[in-house]
């Protein structure tokens, strides 16, 4: 899921570090939180909507396409094959 290319050296270094981090966070096992709801955000806002219109004052298609370092042809970015 992370899609990170790691070297063998990195795999070794990270194994220990990640184990330490995950061991540390296990302290949450001490807590009885069965009586509370999860808080995923603190504003209390729900369903913030806007009209489905394009705001081209913000930025243009050409400006966005020019951010790519890959070749751009006919307003499309040329990528490697997705399907073998």
């Amino acid at each position, binding site marked *: *899921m*992370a*899609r*990170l*290319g*790691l*070297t063998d050296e*990195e795999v070794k*270094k*990270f194994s220990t*570090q*990640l184990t*330490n*981090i*995950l061991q*540390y*966070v*296990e*302290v*949450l*096992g*001490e*807590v009885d*939180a069965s009586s*509370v*709801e*999860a*808080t*995923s*955000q*603190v*504003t*209390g*806002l729900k369903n*913030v909507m*806007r009209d489905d219109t394009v705001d081209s004052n*913000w*930025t*243009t298609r050409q*400006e*966005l396409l*020019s*951010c*790519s*370092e*890959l070749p751009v042809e006919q307003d499309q*970015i040329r*990528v*490697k*094959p*997705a399907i*073998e």
Partner: protein
Amino acid sequence: MDLLSLSVLELHDGFLKKKFTSQEVTRAYLQQIAEKNELLNAYVLTTSESALEEAQAADRRFAEGTSLSVLDGVPCALKDIFNTKGVRTTCCSKMLERFVPPYDATAVTKLRQAGVVFLGKTNMDEFACGGSSEHSCYGPSMNPVDPSRVAGGSSGGSAAAVAGGLSAFAMGTDTGGSIRLPAAFCGCIGLKPTYGRISRSGVTAMASSLDTIGHFTKTVGDSAAILQILAGHDPRDATTPDVPVPDYLKHLEKGVKGMTFGLPKEYLAEGVDPQIKEAIFAAAKVYEQLGAKVVEVSLPSTKYAVAMYYIVMPAELSANLARFDGIRFGSRPKQEGESSVDYFYHARGEGFGSEIKRRIMIGTYVLSAGYYDAFYNKALKVRTLIKNDFDRVFREVDALLTPTSPIPPFKPGEKLDDPVAMYLADACTIPANAAGIPGISVPCGKTSDGLPIGMQIFVPQFEEVRLFQVARAYEDALKI
């Protein structure tokens, strides 16, 4: 007159009274940057030419009597996480080393409209992931008070810029303490407002439910003046509630007589440097002399805050950084591989530093099937407990006083091999992000080695008027 020592409000006053011009001030700062930036590594990009043009335009406005705001002509530095149209914005990551944003962040637009002069972009831990700025692809920012020590992070460059005389004020972001901690380390003021008070549109997201825009200043008055300009609902940021923006400056000098402050015992336990504890108790005495009452309170969930944060934050970070695939934007890898999936691995493998990789891996792990309930969902419930603690305590007290950092500024390399040790530096700052409440760090003394100590003040959500009053009372008491 030392132009570099003047606060934002003093600069404004000086511009109006024609004591000096924006161009003079801007040139003074640019000169200082040229002399000291190599040592401090505060700036990763200086925009001198455009800064002088902006200063010239500001001077014209002052001459014509059409100045835009209290920030008109005032030099500012931006953490390199704020999109600046046409100006390279890298988040201090190889992944964005050539990225030039096609639009300004809302906060940047508001500052532009206020007439601010932009000196450049400042150093930070890569994608805001760190507490020392050592995880920047440009190397760490050093502490102006003791350049053998770090400036803190992740907004290390901005803190070093303000404390080191390289900018009149600077913008930062704070997700677990990334403004408040470097402010404490460097001896300047760092504000993290209420979550959602300032729009995050155009600021690269780290952990979206925790990220907060804020700023570094020399004085409390400056902090209030800048928030006045930046606060407010933004249709481009759906997490900005439509809460009215009060006048932060009007009753700034109200004082603290009759207020009650809490000292949470969990923030003053073992693990906090004794000299830092002493400084906080001394500050509490100052407040008592000013007519406030100080009581001990308890926030029992505090000990779980770091663990909660290091589950929730990496989870959200892994989602936010999934967009960096070197396709629509981001660095094209040197090796591209054969397929799109190969390309992702190479682009992200080459573009991201170690700390980012660690956090992405933790994040995807805690969100994966089989672990989601044990880690992520549990952490979100612990977050509720932390928030509830604050809600309960704020029924009894008007504000909380705590250390900003449990430890004084450290030397580069000291904490790099032990990620958990680095994470614990955020133990006092994380709870405010968890609950979405504002916090400000103000300088409150030095250690016996001469290193700055920061005191942190917490108030409930959207009570920044009170926050500034409390901070200002202490600031005034120290000047007398």
